[in-house]
């Protein structure tokens, strides 16, 4: 059975339209005008038990809203979802014992107390047997290298150390489903790396079903084979990361280092020059022409070093978002003549 099943899930927020100026504000006090924000629009998604899935999307795309719906924090406007067979927004204890939520932007540990005290509280809230509690806590703090910090007040920890403690707190009850909302946000590379390695190892060992949202492509590359791209409340891509790269990345980046310190001036005929920093040059060329270009360059000039890379994932994703935005805009322009269409927020 699938761990997570989502059918036609939608969440629409009604917000009061804010206007500038005192008169408009006073008028709005008596006759508020509303507009509707479609945070999630009819999402369908099935996630099998043991998958590690990434949600990608720009800010405000609906990733976090989807996670909140699946955690039962908010109730959907329409549609269905089942996680481990439970309807999340019924907030049954039986369900709440089986999943965990980590949010990089919010913290749940008691600020002025050592993490150990918050862990103790979690033990009681989740009814974890003492021996299991001690074992899991020691294991997790060992893996994350924060065991010696257990008795230091949380407010004295660094952001990275605190995030690691947040992870431990969330995993103490060995959840079957884990929602990670930007767990590495704002962390330095070392802390990011530690958390990535931890999550990978933990997930491989326990087979926990994980959904991760992150803005760091590195997280996604290291952890997730399956990627769901959400844009404007809708899923615009669902598949493997490699497919996404193949699908989008129809070009390669070639970096050449010339040996005599001189950079030839006629390189632009091979491809687009994106960096010129003698003796180095970076060229952007069509994927199927890459080998041809290298052969031609090497035949003509003396190069010290040549490397070929896929374009950076960030760039690909940004391009994907940009094209989604363009098609959305043209769609809306086409729709504006049809007033009965209510699916787009801009029409309200």
């Amino acid at each position: 059975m699938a761990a997570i099943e989502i059918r036609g899930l939608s969440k629409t927020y009604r917000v009061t339209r804010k206007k500038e100026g005192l008169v408009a504000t006073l008028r709005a006090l008596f006759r508020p005008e509303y507009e509707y924000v479609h945070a999630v629009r009819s999402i369908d998604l099935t996630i099998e038990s043991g998958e590690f899935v990434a949600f990608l999307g720009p800010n405000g795309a609906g990733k976090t809203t989807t996670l909140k719906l699946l955690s039962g924090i908010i109730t959907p406007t329409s549609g269905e979802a089942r996680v481990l067979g439970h309807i999340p927004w019924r907030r049954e204890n039986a369900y709440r014992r089986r999943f965990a939520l980590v949010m990089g932007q919010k913290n749940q540990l008691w600020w002025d107390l050592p993490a150990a005290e918050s862990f103790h509280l979690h033990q009681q809230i989740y009814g974890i047997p003492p021996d299991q509690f001690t074992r899991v806590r020691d294991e997790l703090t060992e893996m994350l290298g924060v065991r010696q910090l257990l008795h230091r007040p949380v407010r004295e920890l660094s952001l990275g150390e605190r995030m690691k403690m947040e992870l431990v707190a969330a995993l103490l009850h060995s959840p079957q489903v884990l929602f990670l909302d930007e767990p590495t946000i704002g962390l330095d590379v070392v802390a990011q790396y530690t958390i990535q390695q931890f999550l990978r190892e933990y997930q491989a060992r326990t087979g926990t079903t994980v959904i991760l949202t992150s803005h760091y492509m590195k997280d996604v590359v290291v952890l997730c084979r399956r990627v769901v791209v959400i844009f404007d409340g809708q899923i615009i891509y669902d598949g493997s990361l490699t497919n996404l790269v193949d699908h989008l990345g129809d070009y390669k980046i070639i970096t050449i280092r010339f040996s005599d310190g001189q950079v030839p001036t006629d390189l632009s005929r091979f491809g687009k020059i994106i960096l010129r920093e003698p003796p180095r040059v970076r060229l952007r060329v069509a994927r199927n022409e890459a080998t041809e270009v290298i052969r031609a360059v090497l035949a003509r000039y003396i190069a010290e070093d040549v490397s070929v890379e896929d374009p950076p994932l960030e760039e690909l994703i940004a391009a994907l978002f940009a094209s989604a935005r363009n098609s959305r805009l043209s769609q809306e322009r086409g729709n504006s003549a049809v007033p009965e269409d209510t699916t787009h927020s801009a029409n309200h």
Partner: protein
Amino acid sequence: MPQPLRYLQIFATFARNSLIRDMTFRANFLIEFISSLSWVFMNLGFYILIFHYTPSLGRDTGWGKYEFFVFTGTALMINSLAGMLFMTNADNFGELIRRGGLDFVLVKPVDTQFLVSLQRVDWSSSGNFLVGLGLAVYSLRCLGVWPSPVTIVLYVFYLLCGVVILYSLMFLLAATAVWLGRNETLFDFWFYIVSFGRYPMEIYEGRFGRPFRWFFTFIIPVLVAINVPSRFLVQSIRPQSLEEWLLPLYTIAATVIVFAVCRAVFQLALHSYRSASS
């Protein structure tokens, strides 16, 4: 582990963690402790001053100096219990809503209202409770009254009813934060309402008093919260009317109803929770 025991254990941890936290900031704790105690003593001084001029509140009401001090002791105990257990939490609820901290409470496999209501225990109010208890005992001794065990059981029961009534009113107002965003003024309203309950109900007499008495007994039952337990100690000897007999029964009904309303509104609030952005 049986459910009630588990909840008790969680509450004990909340109380313990709060104490550890209070002890980390000892100076702050002492200042709060002393300032709230001095407020209590200033009030007491004021009441003593009043009884310099009159032997009793009104004529033949039965509220002499020490009867009134039993009442005040009871009021102190009920108010300090409500303050100690719930006030910080009710105050914090708006913050949980505004900043989205409620997210983490909602995903816990424990009743959300329980977690929100009891997360923090304000130990600095414990001094007021002890003063109230001391005042009630001392005044009873001055009156030469020795309550029977049954009276004491009834007194404690109604004292707890009083705490539940104050709690329910407090969280009814606090829950509106979900719809209002900010509700600080509405929350201050709690203090205004509760201050009506801090006096014997006999003072609400006459053309002006009667409507007050009726309103704060039957619509917002804050008047029975302190009056009823106190009457068991110092007034039960001479019931003045039928009302006097019905009052304890009514108090139980009022406690149940006001708590049920609070619970229903709170559930509705949780349903309407929108969760602040990521």
